[in-house]
Each structure stands twice: as C-alpha cells, then as structure tokens.
C-alpha cells in the first residue's frame, strides 16, 4: 500500500495544529491543576481544614518576604556601592560580606545569623535574647542573606553604565556622590529592575526556610499539621500550590515591567 504523502494533509489542519502549539500549555496545566484543587477546597473536608489553617500564615509569609526584601535592597545598595569603591577599606569590607553571604547555603546562613550572630548583639543592646521574637531574627537573617545577592546586582547595574557618563558628570564639576545619585544610579536601577523583581520572587520562596526557626509561616504550619494528622498529600499539595500561585502572579508582574521597560527604551 502506497504511503499517503504528507502534503495531502490540508493546510487548515496544519494551521490549527500550529496555533495549538503556540498556546501556553504549561500555564493551562497549572491552572487546571489549580481548578482541581479549588474544587477540593470547596468540597473535601480535609482540604477545607488545611486551607483554613494555612490561611493564617499567608500574611506572615508575605510580610516576612516584603520586609526582608526591603532591608536587603538597602543593604544591597550600600554594599554594592562599596564593591565599586576605590577605597580599599570599604571595598574589602564589602567584598568580604558578599563572599561569605553568597558562599554559605541559605539554610545554614539563617541558622548562623539567628542563633550565633544575633544573641551577642542583643546582649550588647541589653535585650534579653528570649524575648526577641524569632520572626524578627528570621527577617534579619533573610535580609542579610539576600543583601549579598542584591549587592552584586547593584554592582553589575552600576558597572554596566558606560564610563563616559561618569566622566561627563565629573567634568561638569559634580562630585562622585553627586554623579552617582543623579546620573549613574537612576540609570543603573532602571536596568536591574527585572533581576530585582526575580529576586523578590526568590526571597518569597526562601521565606519558607524561616520555618526551621519555628516561625509560623505557611511552611511551618503545613509541616506541623501534616505530621500531626498524617494528611501529607493534601497538606503539601495545598502548600506547594500556594507558593506557586504567589510566584506565578509575581513573575507575570515582573514580565510586564520588563516589557514596559523594553518598549520605553526604544
């Protein structure tokens, strides 16, 4: 039997298949899974119980992420400027910080900062370590950890601005701080908004690590609940999906910002 040549397939069929392959299937699959889960939230008792438990931790997760990130950005800007400084003391301190913080795993770093570094500082300030909420320690630990990464992002942004900009600014009589503030940083920050956005998504995921300090974020609530009631699949399905929902929304926002920036820089 002769094989049917592929050109016998009609072109409209090809077009349809072509269009079908353009759809964002990854998103469709995730949304479908979400719908299944959603259905369970409405009907399944187990899921309903889990959801109401986890809901109380969402605010903490979001707040921890936001506050840590805000502090990390401030640290990042300062240390990033230090990393491009010509002053050997400033440069070395900044580089030391970045190397250590980027070289130790996030989990270990959080333990270290919360349990090794913070207590002596608290004693110095006269605060009894027992009363210092672990949530605060977690926020500081996350902020210090991410500060190192943001510092490198800021540094890359600053260094990506051509030398001519600094030269033009200085030749007009601006001081180095003035040139940084009015010329370099405004341009640099605009450039690094996409990576900064992505790092926020990252810190939101890493906020789950504060659970090891006993902080009652959604991961910790899930862990305790699951190990108590043995509803492992239901609990972790819900937990994973919560994170996925948050990070997906955020990455769509980041993408929108990226597109806006790409358009306006033409």
């Amino acid at each position, binding site marked *: 039997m002769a094989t049917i040549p592929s050109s016998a397939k009609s072109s409209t069929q090809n077009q349809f298949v072509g269009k079908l392959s353009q759809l964002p299937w990854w998103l469709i699959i995730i949304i479908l899974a979400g719908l299944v889960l959603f259905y369970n939230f409405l009907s399944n008792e187990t899921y309903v119980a889990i959801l109401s438990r986890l809901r109380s931790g969402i605010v903490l997760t979001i707040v921890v992420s936001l506050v840590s990130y805000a502090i990390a950005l401030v640290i990042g800007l300062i240390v990033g400027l230090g990393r491009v400084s010509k002053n050997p003391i400033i440069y070395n301190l900044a580089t030391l910080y970045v190397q250590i913080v980027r070289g130790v795993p996030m989990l270990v770093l959080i333990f270290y900062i919360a349990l090794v570094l913070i207590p002596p500082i608290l004693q110095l300030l006269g605060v009894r370590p027992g009363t210092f909420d672990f949530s605060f320690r977690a926020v500081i630990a996350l902020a210090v950890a991410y500060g190192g990464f943001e510092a490198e992002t800021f540094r890359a942004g600053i260094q990506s601005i051509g030398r001519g900009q600094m030269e033009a600014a200085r030749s007009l*009589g601006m001081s180095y701080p003035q040139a940084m503030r009015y010329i370099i940083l405004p341009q640099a920050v605009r450039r690094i908004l996409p990576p900064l956005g992505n790092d926020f998504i990252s810190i939101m995921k890493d906020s789950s690590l504060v659970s090891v300090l006993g902080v009652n974020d959604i991961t910790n609530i899930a862990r305790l609940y699951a190990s108590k009631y043995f509803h492992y699949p239901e609990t972790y399905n819900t937990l994973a999906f919560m994170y996925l929902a948050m990070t997906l929304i955020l990455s769509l926002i980041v993408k929108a910002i990226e597109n806006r920036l790409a358009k306006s820089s033409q």
Partner: protein
Amino acid sequence: MIEIKNLVKQFGKLQAVDDVSLTVGKGKVVVIIGPSGSGKSTVLRCINHLEVPTSGEIIVDGIVVSQNHKNINAIRAEIGMVFQQFNLFPHLTAIENIMLAQRIVRGRGQDEARKMAMQQLERVGIPEKASAYPSQLSGGQQQRVAIARALAMNPKIMLFDEPTSALDPEMIKEVLDVMMELAKSGMTMICVTHEMGFARNAADEVIFMDHGKIVERNTPEAFFANPNEARAQAFLRQILH
C-alpha cells in the same frame, strides 16, 4: 591661561604622553592634530584631571591642576569638556541635561538655570528641542546639546575631544559652526580634531603630535602651507585628499 610643563603620562609600559609642554593664552584657540594613539586625547584629559599625570605640571588659570585633588570639582566646573561620544544623560531631557550641573554644582535656582539653559540651546541653534530626550535627537543635535551643557557652566576654557569624529558627515558642519562661533566670541579652546578646515579657520596655533611627543607647532597658515617636519608632511599628505 593654560600651561602644560613637561607632561608625562604612562599607562603601564605605554608612554602615552612623552614630555609635552604647551601654553594656551586667554582667548586663544589651539588645535591638536595627529594620528590615533599620538596622545592628543590623553593630553586633553590630563588638563581636567580625568587622567592623572605621571609627572609634569598643568596650571589652569593660576591653579596647579596636576596636584590639586581637594578642589578638583570646583576646578572642573571652570573647564568645559565635549566628548567624542557626546555622553549626554539619557534619562534626562535636553534642557534637564543642561540644567542639572548648574543647579547642583553652581547652586543656581531652577528658574535661573532654565533661563541659562534656553540661552545656550538658542546659541547652539536648537531651542525647540529642549524637551526632547537624547535618544530622540540626531548625533549633531546631541553634540550641540553637549556643547550647550558645558557652556551653561560659564567655563573659562573649553576642551573638545574629537567632537565630530562620531558624527555622520552631514552633521559635522552644524557642530563645527557652533565651535567657530564660540572661537570668534573669544573662548579659550583646545580642540583635538581631524577637521583640518576648522583648524585652518579657527585656530591660532596648530600642534601636531605623534607617539606622545609634539612634533611640530605653528600658525595654521604656516603649518598647512609648509610643514617643516617630515612626519608632519607625511601626515598631511594622508589627511588632505
């Protein structure tokens, strides 16, 4: 106005500027020409301390620039510089480019700075482009904004580092016209350029550099008509076609 004495600038092993001495009187226009790598841009950049001299002295309006690190910003405000790559600030409009240094370096108020900025934009011929961003301007317009930006600081001298080398040929004239007007108005200028026409018409002195040294210096008439040095002759033969 500007005195350069025995300037030497080394980059590692490379002797970019090799014992250069020159004087520029007030209101004079000096044009420095020469092949690439001859050190002419480096000399210029030493004057406003963008490059730090290895040895030698540079004195601008009585102030020793080569050592004076503390006041360097104030000194730089008196020396205007125009770059080959324009170096306009892309996140600011043309008029904002011209106003910024006036406000944060000279301390002028918003209205005063704006008035001066518009004056300079008119002087360079593009007042209608005040609200445009650099990306919306042609190369020639950008360079003219850059010149206006430097002039708005009321500098005592203007340095031009190959201002037309990055421009399309049709736009070179508009920039050179601005520079001519500036020269005629009595500004002290040092220009590094390949534009021989400008050198002939505007310069009080032409300096030819090669391999970091000054090979010949003369009035433009004398230099272009009859260069003394063989190297200068060879260069002119290549350039003037």
